[in-house]
């Protein structure tokens, strides 16, 4: 039966799943009424300013606070020794290591936290920080991770020098953190030894920084009378922060309240726990007044949450027709001075083993060796799940390298190796089960949309004239939605997520979740999921996250886990409510539950739709005495959702670039991105996420890098040096989609925000390298700045007229 006008109208009223509903968050942001961390102002609040090390490696001989304490407005100066009585001088990291909260006896990276000056306002705090006198004795500096495990390498971590492991298996050198591997090494070696064709390339993912517009910060407020600690914080994972603070401080977790508020972008930078937060908490405990600490931009880029720094080697073995027989990827990972890499406990190299990509590769082996250097600690996932960009970059670059070696077209080599649509769920040789996919359809749709054949023809003509035009392809598979608790935990906490829904008597509802939006539009999209499940208008469904006193426990928003995990929890909690509503409807209509059928916003009696109860009517009834025998009042439900599997969004991207061989400038002529994130909740928000992710991919591919000199000095940590694209450089994005729902997710959704970053970076690189492919170039490391590309032109002798 065709849907009636009435049904279509009722459906439209819900503004549920699949509608481009405008964002609920915008009302405050367009008026300047957001509440970001630096907007929090509490009575009596003091400011903390950090004193940081000018050296990358040095012993602290003495610290003199006297002059700082004499500065008007300065209240206190905290150093490591002041944190020791409360046992907060060292803290656990999310990577199973420990990190000095304030440098204890020595500094291990430039701008490491040495002291915090507490003062009545930010100017006085800054004045005070300038007056703290620290006497350093410089030590030899280790910058190059390739030299980290040399016999004569300076030992960076004396505190753990005698430990033969730091949470992830045996160490072989004081600067060694872990060696992690997956797959079958012997079988892989044997395939390589007998292969018709092998290719090998060194491929770097340089050190970069997520650099959200808002830096990190917090306001810590300890009430000495009640023993209650409230921390307003820029955290993507407020509940994990609460647990860590409880573990660290000994304050009962029930007396700790973490509040996320509005967050000005995260992109992975706001997952870890930073020394600034901890010192602010200690300072509030010591002084009994609220303490605000706000990071400067230079501190942000220099010290909190860098990403990547993976020095990879990719190898593929194939037959003469380009069918891949084996994959061998290794990476040397520079984690800086402390292993504060964000990873699940059992996955020290994150999800790097997704590196078999979208391809049917029978045999594979990968290994990651992580080392300490005198650089800022970290290894966060910059707009991707844990180490997924690194993995996808390697496989997508290597597909092109193999294609070039065999003179097979770069689209064709992908076609020949894709996992076929009829093979899902597909188990990879490195142990993942890809939930669903249709890679051939996605690729063909994109090739047709951009007239791939025509582009290749044009490229051949340009090459004949000596011009450089590149066509980049990327057909990636992501892994997101961490994750099943049997494989994913952080500090012992499983990475489930949660949703608590309460329906009010008048049919409006409030839902609270364990995630934390940083711009993703959760207040809009979660309400759409619930609206469709419950038949209540999304306009009347309030979403709250980020306040640990209100929301149920969850692991936060990172690794595109909100939709796959908390979004699933929202649907499941709503279904519990609908089941109860059905029982109530049956009672009210005096029929059996099985006699009812759901229709948009109501239960109808089968065969007699005139007899029905709307969800709104049921909501009111749930708060009366007219209920089935033994049923409690209320229409609430909570779901803790432990996903059965990760989700595997995919996409097919094409990028066309024109390169000026005289200047090295690359112009992105066209970028066409087809994404398949399963069921689409809000197309407008999806498109927005893709635009943003592609722009961050563009930034990484064409300009971002955090360089150091041989003494460990930063050579670019302000926005003058660190590349954030403006509206002028940023290309125009074309978007498209296919829909292949996840079979294990309640609504079939997979998560989308990170795909464009993960898939975009190799697509750009593939386009740039493709421009030089006819000249024998197989790889160029990022960033593809004009200077570096010009250097390539110069090396080839094509830069002169």
């Amino acid at each position, binding site marked *: 039966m065709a849907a009636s006008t009435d049904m279509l109208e009722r459906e439209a009223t819900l503004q549920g799943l699949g509608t481009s509903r405008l964002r609920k968050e915008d*009302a405050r942001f*367009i008026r*300047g009424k957001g509440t970001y961390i630096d907007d929090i102002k509490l009575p009596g609040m003091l400011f903390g300013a950090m004193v940081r090390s000018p050296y990358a490696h040095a012993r602290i001989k003495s610290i003199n606070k006297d002059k700082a304490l004499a500065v008007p407005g300065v209240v206190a100066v905290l150093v490591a020794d002041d944190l020791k009585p409360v046992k907060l001088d060292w803290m656990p990291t999310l990577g199973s290591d420990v990190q000095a909260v304030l440098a204890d006896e020595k500094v291990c990276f430039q701008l490491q936290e040495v002291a915090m000056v507490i003062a009545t306002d930010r100017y006085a705090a800054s004045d005070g920080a300038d007056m703290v006198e620290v006497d350093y004795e410089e030590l030899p500096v280790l910058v190059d991770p390739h030299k980290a495990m040399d016999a004569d390498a300076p030992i960076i971590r004396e505190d753990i020098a005698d430990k033969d492991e730091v949470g992830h298996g045996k160490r072989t050198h004081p600067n060694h953190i872990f060696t992690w591997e997956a797959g079958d090494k012997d079988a892989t070696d044997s395939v390589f030894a007998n292969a018709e064709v092998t290719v090998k390339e060194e491929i770097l993912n340089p050190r970069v920084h997520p650099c959200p*517009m808002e830096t990190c910060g917090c306001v810590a407020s300890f009430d000495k009378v009640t023993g209650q600690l409230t921390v307003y914080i820029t955290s993507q994972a407020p509940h994990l922060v609460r647990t860590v603070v409880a573990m660290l401080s000994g304050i009962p977790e029930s007396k700790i309240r973490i509040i996320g508020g*509005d967050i000005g972008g995260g992109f992975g930078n706001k997952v870890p726990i930073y020394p600034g937060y901890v010192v602010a908490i200690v300072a509030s405990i010591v002084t009994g007044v609220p303490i605000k600490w*706000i990071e400067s931009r230079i501190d942000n880029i220099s010290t909190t949450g860098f990403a990547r720094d993976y020095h990879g080697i990719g190898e593929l073995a194939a037959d003469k027709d380009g069918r891949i027989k084996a994959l061998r990827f290794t990476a040397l990972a520079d984690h800086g001075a402390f292993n504060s890499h964000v990873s699940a406990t059992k996955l020290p190299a994150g999800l790097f083993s997704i590196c078999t990509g979208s391809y049917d590769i029978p045999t594979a082996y990968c290994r990651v060796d992580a080392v300490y250097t005198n650089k800022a600690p970290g290894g966060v996932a910059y707009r991707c799940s844990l180490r997924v960009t690194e993995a996808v970059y390697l496989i997508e670059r290597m597909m092109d390298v193999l294609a070039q070696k065999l003179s097979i077209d770069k689209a064709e080599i992908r076609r020949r190796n894709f996992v076929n649509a009829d093979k899902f769920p597909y188990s990879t040789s490195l142990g993942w089960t890809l939930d669903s996919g249709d890679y051939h359809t996605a690729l063909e749709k994109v090739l047709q949309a951009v007239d791939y054949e025509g582009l290749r023809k044009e490229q051949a003509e340009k090459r004949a004239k000596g011009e450089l035009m590149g066509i980049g392809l990327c057909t990636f598979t992501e892994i997101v939605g961490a994750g099943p608790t049997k494989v994913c935990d952080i500090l012992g906490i499983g990475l489930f997520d949660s949703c608590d829904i309460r329906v009010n008597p008048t049919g409006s509802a409030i839902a609270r979740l364990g995630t934390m939006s940083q*711009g993703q539009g959760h207040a809009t999209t979660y309400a759409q999921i619930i609206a469709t499940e419950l038949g209540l208008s999304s306009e009347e469904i309030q979403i709250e996250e980020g306040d640990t006193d209100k929301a149920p426990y969850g692991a936060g928003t990172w690794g595109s886990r909100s939709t796959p995990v908390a979004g699933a929890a929202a649907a499941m909690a709503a279904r519990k409510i609908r089941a109860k509503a059905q029982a109530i409807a049956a009672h009210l209509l005096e029929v059996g539950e099985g006699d009812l059928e759901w229709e948009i916003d109501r239960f109808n009696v089968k065969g007699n739709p005139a007899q029905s109860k709307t969800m709104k009517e049921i909501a009111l009834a749930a708060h009366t005495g007219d209920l089935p025998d033994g049923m409690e009042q209320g229409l609430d439900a909570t779901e803790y959702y432990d996903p059965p599997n990760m989700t595997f969004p995919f996409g097919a991207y094409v990028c066309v670039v024109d390169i000026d061989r005289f200047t090295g400038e690359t112009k992105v002529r066209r970028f066409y991105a087809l994404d398949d994130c399963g069921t689409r909740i809000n197309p407008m*928000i999806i498109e927005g996420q893709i*635009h*943003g992710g592609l722009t961050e991919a563009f930034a990484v591919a064409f300009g971002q890098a955090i360089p150091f000199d041989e003494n460990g000095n930063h050579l670019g940590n302000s926005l003058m040096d660190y590349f954030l694209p403006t509206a002028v450089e940023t290309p125009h994005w074309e978007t498209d989609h296919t829909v292949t729902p996840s079979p294990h997710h309640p609504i079939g959704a997979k998560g989308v925000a990170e795909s464009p970053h993960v898939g975009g970076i190799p697509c750009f690189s593939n386009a740039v390298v493709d421009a030089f492919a006819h000249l024998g170039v197989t790889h160029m490391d990022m960033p593809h700045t004009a200077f570096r590309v010009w250097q390539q032109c110069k090396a080839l002798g094509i830069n002169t007229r």
Partner: protein
Amino acid sequence: MAKKQTVSFTLNGTQVDVVVEPRELLIHSLREKLQHTGPHIGCETSHCGACTVDIDGMSVKSCTVLTVQCQDAEVLTIEGFEQGGELHALQEGFTQEHGLQCGYCTPGMITRAYRLLKENPSPSEEEIRYWMAGNLCRCTGYQNIVKAVQYAANKLSSASA
């Protein structure tokens, strides 16, 4: 510490007085003394534009202007855009075209776009991108910001036609 001074200026149409050290930056006076937390601090080096305000008919990054320079000035911030409960066309455009995500750059973006449309009421896409290049956004990729400005330009020009 230098002697504090009283500075008087017009903030979104209202006369205000603020007592500051000579070194105090306008962004800090606005945010901490005058409770106007709409303009944000993103870099303190005038690169990101999150702190953009309009002073005497010019876009200014308020993290690099001293409050004492604002004596008798006319200052407009994001808080001054909504008039009589009516959103400005730019505020409406940013919502309608999904021109914002985390919202941190938005007040600066809208304030900068306001100045653009005052100077050039019907800018091309290229002109919008050029004019907005001093305001960084990490979330949107600018495409919908361009559309938001075009939305406002269209709305304002049809209103004045």
